[in-house]
């Protein structure tokens, strides 16, 4: 049922927790996981400014999501890493809807009401607009 799982991550502790759930899902249904990390404009700008080459930027970004990858390494699950560009919400939605995913696993950042109003919740946006089941991990 859940053969292709998308795990959205930003390298935070919260998303490490979502990784756990994604792994359990994948093991249950012997599915694969696509680990997705979205680089927004602001991050693009400061990453380019602070690093000497594309390769260094790529390495740093992989490093950032390394905790999640380490978790996956301890399992036998087939996984891929995808780095997308743009605003996190829309970028994930577009990627999910143009590829056949069976489930999206995404962490909720645990913002309060004011922060949600100002920053907007990525997980809500994704849940509202993707065409497949979404698991929001609190």
């Amino acid at each position: 049922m859940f053969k292709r799982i998308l795990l959205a991550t930003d390298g935070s502790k919260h998303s490490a927790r979502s990784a756990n759930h994604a792994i359990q899902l994948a093991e249950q249904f012997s599915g694969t996981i696509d680990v997705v990390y979205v680089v927004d404009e602001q991050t693009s700008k400061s990453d380019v400014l602070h690093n000497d080459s594309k390769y260094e930027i790529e390495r740093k970004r992989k490093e950032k999501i390394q905790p999640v990858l380490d978790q996956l390494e301890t399992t036998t699950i087939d996984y891929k890493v995808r780095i997308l560009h743009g605003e996190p919400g829309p970028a994930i939605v577009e990627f999910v809807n143009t590829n056949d995913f069976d489930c999206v696993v995404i962490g909720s950042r645990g913002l309060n009401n004011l922060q949600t109003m100002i920053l907007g919740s990525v997980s809500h946006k994704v849940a509202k607009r993707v065409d497949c089941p979404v698991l929001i991990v609190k």
Partner: protein
Amino acid sequence: MILQKMKQEWFGNVRGDVLAGIVVALALIPEAIAFSIIAGVDPMVGLYAAFCIAVVIAFVGGRPGMISGATGAMALLMVNLVADYGLQYLLAATILTGIIQILFGVFKLAKVMKFVPRSVMVGFVNALAIMILTAQFQHFVGETWVMYALVGLTLAIIYLFPRITKAVPSTLVAIIVVTAIAIYGNLNVGTVGDMGELTQQLPVFLIPSIPFTWETLMIIFPYSLSMAIVGLLETLLTASIVDDMTDTESNKNKESRGQGIANIVTGFFGGMAGCAMIGQSVINVKSGGSRRLSALVAGVCLMFLIIVLGGLVVQIPMAALAGVMIMVSISTFDWSSVKNLNKLPKTDAAVMVTTVGIVLITHNLSIGVLAGVLLSAIFFAAKISNIHVSEELVLREQKKIYRVEGQLFFASVSDFPGKFNFTDSVDKVEIDLTHAHLWDDSAIGALDKIEMKFEENNIKVTYSGLNDESHHLKKRIGGLSKASGH
């Protein structure tokens, strides 16, 4: 094939490019005017520059999706030239800037830009942000609370309006609202019209009216060189950011050449020198622009709006523009560099702070960059000139082994011989260079000197572990300075 590629570059994303182009045009107008005011010229000079550069770059640039126009970095460099010699010299300097940039492109000097360390680039953007901010202070001199209130309102709208919708650029909304308040509230505040003339017509081709003498060239050349370097630096940085944002490649040498062509054309059509704009390029990509068409639409749309709405543009209060510039300054500044200043290597932090400091003292971005590059070169030389020598005594053979680690070159060898003990009572000395690299004749000279000193005490010297390159160098120039040869 080529036709196919051109079609892709131009019309691969028509809808996104047209929409993004319009958004960029609207965001460009206030900035082009504000940068003209920083440079001390009529608003038209910046607007013509934004128009000409955007349109020309659409055709000859190397990074589709990037927006170029009149910029703060360039405006700040031309302040003195304009104040001392006037607009005509600025136009001539703009043309010369373009010529220098084309030469940079032809000789593929874009590559040299990678020798500008990241800490210098961070210092560059931070200094630029501070200079844009301080350039706004003059507009507050002798003003009442009304000015402060309008600037505050402008900033509030810029930062809060995107919560309602992101379809319209919030800077435009802020400018419209604040201008409306100033007009209908009959507020007596300074406007764009007070800063200079705004003619509602297309730019025309003119040759700058300057005396074509050696003296003129000597006046404009330093400015042009600074602008050429700073323009390319900001352009290549922006191009890399757009590359990363869109996950595509771009042709940096073509872009350098394109910037040159754009500046030459701009100079002949009454515009000031410009370069790529980080903020506008981000807006363009975020709004869906990715091809050449978006820059063309941005330029044409900007000119159209000025011709149609020029009468309204002159009524924009300076408070609104100052607010927009404060926003530009805040978003240009690299806040993470301040947050992480204590985490950075001390030398990197020193280079960054020095670059900013020198720019603020000299009011010249290019001098700051140069100083930053020099300082980091010195730090680098100091860092890699650390040589570590460890010794091991082999009693059975009456031999001492010195293991050398590090880079041997002119800056590192001065105290190198001091690390050897020439009066040891041994028969043989082995110098192990497995973890060392010989770079120049100073390194060879130092080794020869060491060998000679040992031989004076009847100690025989052998070398081991030389890598190929070092070996060749040693063979080529070694032994010239000592009698025995080796």
